[in-house]
């Protein structure tokens, strides 16, 4: 039987406010446990929440960026359950009246599928703390630094039909929140976490299959792998005559399998009710419009502009616009070297490679856009070849310096002087009698391929500094002269 996959995502995005959603404590990541938890975060008796207006502003920015209705009245509710890292015994969240209503984003996968994914809503809530189970001799440690960090939970409709679409959607949300500057996008630190609701149904069937929820996935790659794994499990189960049980499952990336965490029967009754300590949040059109006026260029618009303004391919424009620091960096490189295609190749090629290898964000790239632009200028004016440029770039990455400084210090300037090149070509030809004979004996249309050997010899002799175009011309001219 042919199966159709149905996926909906719930993405938790940590907002990059400096203080928590209901207290004045810092939200900075990585501090010693419980040093960023104030009386309110610790849920000391008598403490009360005060809503951080920055979190509201950021949520509204997000809503506007995903074409959503903004809730002019939104209400915080309490979701009641006991857990040691939930100090109040309830999470303050939104349910019936969220800040962001229905909206949509358009996605495209690598293999060219495009789709509109509808958002059901997005709401504001507080993060919980963390339970630490190691190193406590059979007890658990509680770190409440994260408790009260503002989150926007973005709930999609079940509109995605493949793991690739799910990953593309998550990437799009990531691109939007980082472009807006409302989230640092650091998935490894948990700034963006994803729950995937996955079900399968026979192709053509309208009724949705029973879904499972895969919790807390924190990379795009794992989203794809977790969904693929879960889809395969569900299909196997059904084809073997079994039934999918509605439950929450955990994805284990090491074993590449999903495991049951809890079934629907164990689910809490959260006893939601409006939080009496917080008044409804009322905003008006002028508040919303003032925020709209501050919105930066969004990824879709930027991509379209990159295609239009820089004549980039759809793919290149999509990659470059997906992360705002990268898009900004790219545009600075273009500004410095005035060659949009060359800049795109380098930002997505050599730079991305080294950033990846060193696990470095482009925001803190050791090579600045000005440095890279300066390097590309030297390719354009034939001071160095593309290959030498890679060497310069690596030196730049490890030791700093401008392209000109490195080229000068390392003596990497390209040899373009035809007299000097001729002299080396003559030497190469003189030392390769066997290859020269073969060249002469070959049919004329096959000689072009044989030029490579001589080219390599010349480059070896010049340490790669000879201008490849000039070398080819001179080689061809001299060798062909021998053939006539």
């Amino acid at each position, binding site marked *: 039987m042919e199966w159709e996959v149905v996926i909906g995502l719930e993405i938790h995005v940590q907002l990059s406010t400096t203080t928590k959603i209901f207290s004045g404590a810092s939200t900075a990541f990585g501090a010693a446990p419980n040093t960023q938890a104030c009386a309110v975060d610790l849920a000391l008796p008598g403490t009360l929440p005060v809503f951080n207006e920055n979190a509201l502003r950021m949520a509204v920015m997000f809503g506007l960026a995903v074409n959503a209705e903004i809730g002019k009245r939104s209400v915080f509710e309490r979701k009641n359950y006991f857990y040691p890292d939930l*100090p109040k015994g309830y999470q303050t969240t939104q349910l019936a009246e969220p800040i962001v209503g229905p909206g949509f984003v358009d996605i495209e996968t690598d293999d060219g599928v495009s789709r509109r994914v509808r958002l059901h809503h997005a709401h504001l809530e507080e993060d919980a703390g963390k339970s630490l189970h190691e190193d406590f001799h059979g007890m658990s440690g*509680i770190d409440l630094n994260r408790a009260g960090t503002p989150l926007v939970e973005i709930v999609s409709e079940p509109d995605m039909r493949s793991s690739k679409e799910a990953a593309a959607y998550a990437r799009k949300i990531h691109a939007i929140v980082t472009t807006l500057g409302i989230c640092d996008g650091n998935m490894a630190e948990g700034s963006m976490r994803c729950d995937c609701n996955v079900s399968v149904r026979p192709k053509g069937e309208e009724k949705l299959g029973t879904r499972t929820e895969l919790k807390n996935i924190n990379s795009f790659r794992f989203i794809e792998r977790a969904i693929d794994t879960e889809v395969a499990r569900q299909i196997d189960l059904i084809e073997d005559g079994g039934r999918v049980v509605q439950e929450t499952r955990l994805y284990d990336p090491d074993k590449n399998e999903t495991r049951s965490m809890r079934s629907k029967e164990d689910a809490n009754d959260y006893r939601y009710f409006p939080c*009496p300590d917080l008044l409804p949040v009322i905003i008006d059109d002028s508040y919303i419009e003032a925020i709209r006026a501050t919105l930066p260029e969004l990824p879709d618009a930027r991509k379209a502009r990159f295609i239009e303004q820089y004549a980039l391919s759809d793919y290149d424009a999509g990659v470059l616009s997906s992360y705002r620091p990268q898009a900004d960096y790219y545009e600075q490189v273009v500004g410095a070297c005035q060659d949009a295609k060359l800049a795109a190749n380098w930002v997505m090629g050599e730079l991305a490679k080294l950033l990846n290898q060193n696990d470095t964000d482009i925001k803190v790239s050791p090579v600045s856009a000005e440095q890279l632009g300066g390097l590309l200028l030297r390719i354009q004016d034939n001071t160095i070849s593309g290959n030498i440029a890679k060497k310069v770039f690596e030196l730049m990455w490890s030791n700093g310096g401008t392209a000109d400084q490195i080229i000068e210090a390392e003596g990497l300037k390209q040899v373009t002087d035809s007299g000097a090149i001729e002299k080396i070509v003559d030497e190469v030809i003189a030392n390769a009698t066997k290859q020269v004979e073969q060249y002469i004996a070959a049919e004329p249309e096959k000689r072009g391929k044989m030029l490579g050997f001589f080219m390599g010899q010349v480059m070896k002799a010049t340490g790669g500094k000879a201008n490849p175009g000039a070398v080819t011309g001179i080689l061809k001219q001299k060798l062909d002269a021998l053939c006539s």
Partner: protein
Amino acid sequence: MFELTLAELAAGLRKGDFSSVELTRSYLERIKAEDGRYNSFITVTEEQALAAAAAADAALTAGTATAFTGLPIAHKDLFCTDGVRTSCGSKILDNFVSPYDATVVSRFKQAGAVMLGKTNMDEFAMGSSNENSYYGAAHNPWDLERVPGGSSGGSAAAVAARLTPAATGSDTGGSIRQPAALCGITGLKPTYGRVSRYGMIAYASSLDQGGPIARSAEDCALMLNVMAGFDPLDSTCLEREVPDYTATLDQPLAGLKIGLPKEYFSSALDDQIAQRVRDAVAEFEKLGATVKEVSLPNTELSIPAYYIIAPAEASSNLSRFDGVRYGYRCEDPKDLEDLYKRSRGEGFGAEVKRRIMVGTYALCAGYYDAYYRKAQQIRRLIQQDFIRVLNDVDVIMGPTTPHPAFRIGEKNNDPVSMYMEDIFTLSLNLAGLPGMSVPCGQVDGLPVGLQIIGSHFAEAKLLNIAHQFQQATDWHKQAPAGI
């Protein structure tokens, strides 16, 4: 000295009749000697009190003193006090020393007040008799066999027994007014949002309001001057100007329009209490007021609505007492669930557990609409009733309680009959309105309270009316026998 009001004590301090240290020491000695009979204090803070008194004396000498400088008070033990145990009358917080001051506490500190200690109360402010305290029942100074009312029973008993000239209280369904009535003193529940709730341990957040308990309306005005006002730490506290509540106490009452709700004078009301209230109203007529009958048709519904909303909020508010971060933790929990169940099972008393269970039930999926939502709708009806009536009259008057103080143990096995004691008081909390209880007579030697209800933010008017009544009568000056 123990018969002097706050206003008189302030004058005495300024004249040099006594110092704040002398005053404070006298009260501390009196508490030590007498409180064994009343059990009105949970914690006496002698050291801090004497230090604060010495600082107050320095300010008085230096001329930097303000109206409240050097005056002793006590705080209900649900106001968090930095460095002092704040128990909320519960075993679960018996070991809790607050690391911060409630806004009300810090305002009194800044005003130069001297805290004598923390007063007894029904556990988590749940009760109408002060019998639900982990620290034992408090006793009514008018009859030690009887309850002082609750939940601010310790504050009321301490003020009535002259162990402190005044005390703070909190009122969620009558917890200031009812004990004030049963102990023959004066108490004010302000408009919801008038006094900050920050640091006042929550029972039912949308109903809780702190307020003053003292021996006169004038003293309540002095206290409210300190307590009232916007607090950025409480989102439900309103940003609204605070008048000088003492400035309008002497306004004449000629032309005052009083409404008497016919529903308050039903057969459930003790005849003699009804008579005392009518006598008081007659006194107001002498002062130039006019009286008419009004109707609050949804009064009866206030009890079921209250006993859904308050427990629902409480069930959530009390979830933080889980044995994890502070407070009581059971011995040797075998796992997390055991830790929760036993810490809470052993730490909370019966009435608290009862309300947590009722509230949890009311909020459950499938019951929410039938209970919580319906109760909120009734709440709006009750509010509308009051607003309609208060468009017609200036204030509403009636009894504070249907009976005088009952015997300790009398209603222990009948929670519903205990809940009925709050019939006249808790509708104000549902409507967010201010109300006062003022002594207006006695029945069989036990005090009776007159309740005065005003529009939102009409505290100054209520205090003015109560003060004029106290200028014309001396019920508020009556002391229990043997005091």
